[in-house]
């Protein structure tokens, strides 16, 4: 039974690994690099925080 669980673990790892690689490829080819890397640190805080004590 444990050997079957072990083989199953390899199979799940392979399937999910391939899925992530496929999704990565799909996303990188569907969106521009500017959009994907457009996140900026502290954007929300910059709007919300006025720092008037």
């Amino acid at each position, binding site marked *: 039974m*444990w*050997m079957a*669980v*072990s*083989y199953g*673990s*390899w199979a*799940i*790892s392979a399937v*999910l*690994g391939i*899925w*992530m*690689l496929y*999704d*990565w490829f799909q*996303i990188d080819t569907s*969106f521009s*690099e*500017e*959009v*994907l*890397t*457009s*996140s*900026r*640190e*502290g*954007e*929300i*805080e*910059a709007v919300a*925080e*006025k*720092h*008037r*004590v």
Partner: protein
Amino acid sequence: MSIALEPTVHGDRVSLLRVLGPGHVWALGVGIVLVGEFTGWNFSADKGGALAALIVCWLVGLLYTSVAMIDSEVTSTVAAAGGQYAQAKHIVGPLMAFNVALYLVFAYTMLEVSDAILLGDTIVAKAGVEGLTHNSFIAATIVVLAWLNYRGVLMTLNVNFVITAIAYISIVILFFAVSPWTQGAVLQLNELVTPANALPYGWIGVIAAFQFGIWYYLGIEGTTQAAEEVRSPARSLPYGTMAGMITLLIAAAMTWYVCASLMPWEYLGVTYYPLWDAGKLTGSAFLENLLFIATLLAALASANGCINDAARAWFSLGRDRYLPSWFSAVHPRYRTPYRSILFLLPIALAFAFIADLNQAITFSILSGVLQYTFMSINIIMFRRKWPLNSIRRGYTHPFHPVPAVVLFCLCVVTFFAIFLGFGSQLIAMVTFYFLISLWFHFYRYKFVRRGEQFTMPWPRPQGY
């Protein structure tokens, strides 16, 4: 959640998703740490005896309470992914920030590796089947959890909440099942810890025990990595972190009491499964199986949180161009730092297959203690540059600078303890960080957009 199913681009920006609450922060912090009760802390008994393991439980508890208090104050103000990295960048400077981010990535990746190895070894030990190795279980742990992290932070930390709570409740069930109020019925503390064997190596043994006493609480500071994904950072981060620390102090005390009352220190100090063994020693099949499952769940929760945190630290380095900005990509559907998660995945797998558990644990502890040392200096600088009434804080920790001084002193003791046990690794890691700092200063920093990296809308620091 519907927002995770369709590409979500606000204007021309894609950012991490703000969906987390204090419970998720608790799940992230306690989830990373709780595995330390199931294995790790007990090696301190090997260094100094059962009483030394209890003394470091309290003293290291003091160290981490200081960490939690300091972290809560700074992070409730610098609410950005990267946690201590973002703090270091704004308060100390870019070179410190680069080093802190590397401490974070090393500490969490090595802890993830240790968790995966522990999980694999636990299953192999339970199965007792000849020819069965831990490799498939290690691979599945790392890949499945990376996939979960890839798909979204909300589900990742919901899962962490549930499995951490089950693992924690199992410790509570074990504690009450052995009638802790009646010595001699099941527990034998008076016979197992006597004045003759309580500190077999004297007080130097207590200092040496710091090296593994760290495992009672290692990783609680990871809550800050969620800063950019919680709905209310100023409220959720202090609540989640402090509640997590209280939870862990209770768990650590219960764990020591039950284990030290069931096993002689010579065995307690070398076993890889102190709580699972405690379950076996009660003679109850239910408790044995419960603690076996809880050990697996604690390892899973820890690895899950570590993947989350290491990826955010790496992502933050890319976003500020301390590393190639390619790493700063956010998945437009799942709103996760997917390239950072994928980049760190094969690194974790490689270490898990080639490193042994002790080496991985030591690298994780070393990077963690370097980070705590920084935090003690960081809070002093933070209070000096931006005194209490100059900027708004979500939480203000009491008794400043006592926690900072206590933290620094306990870090020095821990470094000495690590030097006693793993001196060559300590020197190798410090050398590595020195060389990588030279690389950053003389080569990489010219790619950084210097003005854009400081994002907090704070007034000019005092004295500048």
